[in-house]
């Protein structure tokens, strides 16, 4: 059990009946690292992530997040992580301010802190005019940025992002990744799943999951050298094809 690691996974397995969704995976994520968690649809990414954020119990193996065990200390894990899902994470029929107040509230932040954070967040994203508008009326890219900021409200040490940029235009995606980097520089650990291979290039290290197993895990640069290709896209295709 290494204390310096943000995430520590050892022989983690999840079975649904006879089907093995996650097959004996092990990896570590260091503090302040941007870790890309890649894989085709159905490769077991989401299942693995659900175990790490404490809403799915592992069948066997261990996982520690923020040095808490995900199976036995799920409550502690939940307090130390932020989470933003591929599906939209804010309430459409609440205003930006109300969403911030609500999510701040369920993480047990004090009213004064929430007020302060709300102001900070609105200034930072330049949403002064939109703060009292329903989230419904915002463009998708803005919603995602607000959702990311909301997942940071309680100052978590580790942030889990499940396909955060799905359906967003390239410029907004770029801005989104700038936000991710800013948080990583502050020492936060980022665990991100994505389908965009160009985004994989932005990560410090990436793992590629195929059929429940981690088939590759290294820096994008090393992976490209290892598979003798120029882009992460080709690495991904090569891996997926070899398995078939």
């Amino acid at each position: 059990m290494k204390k310096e690691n943000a995430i520590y996974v050892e022989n983690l397995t999840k079975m649904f009946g006879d089907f093995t969704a996650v097959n004996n995976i092990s990896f570590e994520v260091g503090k302040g690292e941007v870790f890309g968690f890649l894989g085709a649809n159905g490769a077991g990414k989401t299942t693995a992530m659900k175990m790490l954020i404490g809403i799915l119990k592992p069948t066997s193996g261990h996982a520690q997040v923020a040095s808490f065990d995900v199976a036995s200390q799920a409550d502690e894990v939940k307090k130390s992580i932020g989470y933003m899902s591929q599906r939209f994470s804010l309430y459409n029929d609440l205003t930006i301010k109300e969403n911030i107040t609500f999510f701040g509230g369920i993480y047990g932040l004090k009213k004064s802190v929430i007020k302060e954070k709300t102001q900070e967040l609105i200034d930072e994203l330049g949403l002064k005019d939109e703060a009292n508008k329903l989230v419904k009326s915002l463009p998708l890219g803005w919603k995602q940025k607000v959702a990311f900021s909301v997942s940071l409200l309680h100052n978590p040490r580790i942030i889990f992002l499940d396909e955060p940029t799905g359906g967003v235009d390239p410029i907004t995606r770029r801005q989104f990744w700038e936000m991710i980097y800013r948080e990583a520089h502050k020492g936060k650990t980022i665990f991100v799943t994505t389908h965009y291979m160009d985004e994989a290039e932005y990560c410090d290290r990436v793992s590629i999951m195929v059929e429940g197993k981690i088939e590759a895990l290294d820096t994008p640069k090393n992976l490209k050298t290892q598979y003798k290709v120029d882009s992460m896209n080709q690495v991904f295709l090569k891996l997926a094809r070899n398995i078939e």
Partner: protein
Amino acid sequence: MKRFIGFIEKEFYHILRDRRSLFILFGMPIVQVLLFGFAITNEINNVDIAILDHSKDATTKVIIDKIAASEYFSIKQFIDYEAAIEPAFKKGQIKAVLNFEKDFSNKLISEKKATIQILTDATDPNTANTISNYMASILQNYQEELNKGIALSYQIVPKTRLAYNPELKSVFMFVPGVMTVILMLVSAMMTSISITREKELGTMEILLVSPLKPLQVIIGKVVPYILLAVINAIIIILLSIFVFRMPVQGSLFLLGAESLLFIINALSLGILISTISASQQTAMMASLMGLMLPVILLSGFIFPISSMPIPLQIISNIIPAKWFIIILKGIMLKGVGLAYIWKETLVLLGMTLLFIGISTKKYKIRLE
């Protein structure tokens, strides 16, 4: 606790900003009570009838005047011969024909017996039945007047009294039923929809990743609906007292407590539905087909349970609404206390605990 209040606040934003659910929540009870109270009724008023009088003598005139004077009937036309009855019915304007035989007065005096035929349009059997009963009672009345002062050697005079609802107002029968339906609708359907909505939108996942306990999430979702259901119950009771003059004979406190028990029963059913349905549509269909239909058809709300076939009577026992309607009628109309309805209360309580047990178990399984 502070987290909790924030959660409930958010739930109210959802409800207040969704016009459709607001209408279901507050429009429906009012519309339904008024509809059932005014439009759907077993009473008859100013039913159009026709008279075929073969005698046209003093006695038949008195009887016809008596019928015309009652508020139940209005005489639309006079027919002269039998063959005209059928066409009159077919036109659909009249619901009944009163046919006096020839020499009515004479026969009544000489033979002490004369005959009137009451023909009713039984395409609507309930109305036909009511019409002939009302008609018979007017004639009975007249007969008693005639016999006044004449001592019959043996006489059995049944004196009927219609207890608890002397005027046979059908609204008295419908109010407990409507209240049951509305509370079921608000509590079960609305909560199941609101919980599945969070699942569908993906926000449920965010809530489960937060430090809130699953149980807290569920209670937070349910509490606002308890409040709304209570407000609804109050609206319905006020409407029935002030618009329909329906008395509440028993204790208001007991009425409130029993209503709360039923609301919690319905809510636990709603949670149960939300654990087994993945989308709002499924939740709505499950609530409508699985809950509303049995509540309306098998609870004794509209159709009396005692006249159902035995298998249906047995099935009706597992419908919570049946027990709640018995309780409501007991408290509102008969004014009984807990001593008379403890059995029904116990059944309802048992069902509630069972539903809560099953739904918490189901809910936990989903999280594994």
